[in-house]
């Protein structure tokens, strides 16, 4: 066990029972019942397939395997205001319609290549000022959406997928190291010694 694990465990012991993991598992193992917005099974599938197109399974797990779609929906359901949710839903309808017109198919029935082409096409058509970039050092979703509903929908799904992914246990333990208890502050530290994943 390295020193940090020891420290974290020590803190857990000191902290006692209250530190047991929350019973509400945020990444969810099943789809979450939404409280504020109405999404039907097809729409849920569309969003899940968008998530998987953004973060596909490669030699590391993809969005679906990490249960990101449920979290993305939960974020939009809980953390967006009514106005943003209305734009999101209107945008999803527009998106579905656009795919149907262009491909005579639903998004989910398309090949990965077509799905990628659709998403890349939207992204390249109009980027928000900050792109999908979350602010500075801590990933945070951007809550104020674009005026155009389709863009609002697109960026909401993309940003929340990125947020879900980069704050997931898998990402923060396997792909990068989230250092909860650094126990150090070294200044004048050579960039060459930094482990940039």
């Amino acid at each position: 066990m390295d020193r940090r694990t020891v420290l974290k465990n020590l803190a857990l012991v000191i902290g006692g029972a209250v530190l047991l993991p929350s019973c509400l598992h945020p990444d969810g193992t099943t789809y979450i019942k939404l409280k504020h917005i109405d999404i039907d099974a097809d729409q849920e599938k569309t969003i899940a397939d968008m998530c998987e197109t953004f973060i596909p399974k490669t030699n590391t797990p993809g969005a679906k395997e990490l249960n990101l779609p449920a979290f993305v929906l939960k974020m939009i359901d809980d953390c967006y205001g009514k106005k943003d949710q209305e734009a999101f839903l209107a945008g999803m309808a527009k998106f579905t319609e656009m795919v149907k017109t262009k491909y005579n198919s639903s998004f989910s029935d398309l090949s990965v290549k077509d799905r990628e082409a659709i998403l890349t096409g939207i992204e390249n058509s109009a980027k928000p000022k900050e792109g999908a970039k979350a602010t500075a050092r801590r990933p945070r979703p951007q809550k104020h959406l674009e005026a155009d509903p389709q863009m609002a929908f697109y960026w909401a799904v993309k940003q929340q997928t990125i947020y879900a992914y980069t704050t997931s246990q898998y990402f923060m333990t396997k792909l990068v190291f989230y250092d909860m208890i650094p126990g150090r502050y070294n200044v004048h530290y050579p960039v060459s010694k930094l482990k940039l994943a």
Partner: protein
Amino acid sequence: MANLNIDSVKTRTFDAIVIGSGISGGWAAKELTGHGLKTLVLERGRDVKHIKDYPTTNKFPWEFEHHGQLPAAVTEANPIASRCYAFGEDSAHFFVKDKEHPYIQDKPFDWIRGYQVGGKSLLWARQTQRWSDFDFEGPARDGFAVDWPIRYKDIAPWYSYVEKFAGIAGNKDGIPELPDGEFLPGYPLNDVEVYFSEHLKKNYKNRHVISARCAHLSKPNQIHIDQGRTQCQNRDLCQRGCPFGGYFSSNASTMPWAEKSGNMTLRPFSVVESIIYDDKLGKATGVRVVDTKTKETIEYYAKIIFVNAAAINTNLVLLNSTSARFPNGFGNDSGVLGKYIAFHNYSAHIGAEYDGLKEWTVDGRSPTGGYIPRFRNVYKQETNFLRGYACGFSAYRYQQHKYDGVGSSLKEGLVKGDLSPWYVGSHMMGETIPKESNHVSLDSKLKDEWGVPLLRINIDYDDNDEKMKKDYIEQLTEMFTSAGFKNIQPSTNHQAPGLDIHEMGGARMGKDPKTSILNEWNQVHACKNVFVTDGACMTSTSCQNPSLTYMAITARAADHAVSELKKGNV
């Protein structure tokens, strides 16, 4: 029955009562119990025990329901609390929710509150700079407010006293306007902060960047280990409560210490409705409390009373404590109670990039940053505004990820990425001038759930603040430019007073009972067994973060109270 009543009075009688358990109340509790006084500590909120009641402290981001983000229902229901930088999914349980405790904003005022044992000491930014005589002599020299009845020499030993116990990290910088203290090793400045510090030293007189002194155990002494605290682990998750006791809070430090003395009785869920004044005895005999759960009114009695309800609420308690002797509020012969409230002006920022020192970065996290002590109007009046400002100053860089595209390239962009250039940022911390018009008062009709009148808050910026803000932007822009920083971006906001969480005054100290509420020992001029030692006592605001000064003032006043008790003077 008669006996029962006598017994009941007896169980409700103490040597001392402390109203509030935040940063100053905790100190009052520790000092008074430490001198053997049976002390009742009243807290309007719930109890929060160190570690045990920090439910989020060891959670990883993915263990939060929204990975740290607050639901819209919470932010929309709490526009005031939501404006505080520390209000998040990991800390919301330590903040007062807007609807629970309403107040009337005659002018916009973001009143940030923490109603629990420990108060806001769980949430504070932990910056602890001493005041100097440039601050205590300010009102007299510049002709505003009233003269402070104390000087630096009066409080210096008490700064040392509280610093040793609380644990303050800092360096001996030898700057007269920011006196050195009893420090644990300071956190170092990083390379760009050092660069800017050296730049200022070379090019400006009296402008310094130092490592901001902070209440963190960089290297604990025995006295901190005796409190059950250990070294700060640089987690930067302080607002959750620290399981290591790495930073000072009432919960980690003074309250358990007071409890250990065996002399403290802690009563949470107890709103103080008023202080009881006995006309015949000519002094205060106790306090009237409303139990927030049962709504029952109970009286408690003591020889001395310390009022540490937090600046604005202390004003509320005093204003609501009326009697034949004090028809306009407790100790308010002068008519200044609730007036001359001031705060700190945090409404300007500036950011920039630095295109050098690219081969260097930092590793780990610092609990503090750089600090530029006040350099305006220090030795003499030199600008078109009174007083001045201190500045936060920090340099940082971070890994830049790519968020473009879809698929494996996006996945890679989220993991990999080069280091950004250095960015620098600063915010102003301006002194504001206490004015009679900046005041709080009781509403004549509306009351809260416990029968206490609602507070009306009437506090605003003035022309002096605007001029100072303009000067901050000008000076920092010039300093950044001459240091070779690029892409300099000043910004101002219109944040309401209150969001600085440095509201002060209303029951100010002063030499003359005709123009102040408290004397040089924080005793109410007209009722010497009542002491006010939280932010309400402040005659002026300086520009240093005030908590350390509250601690020192409290310890000093408690010492005086004990000695006056022994002499039979109170």
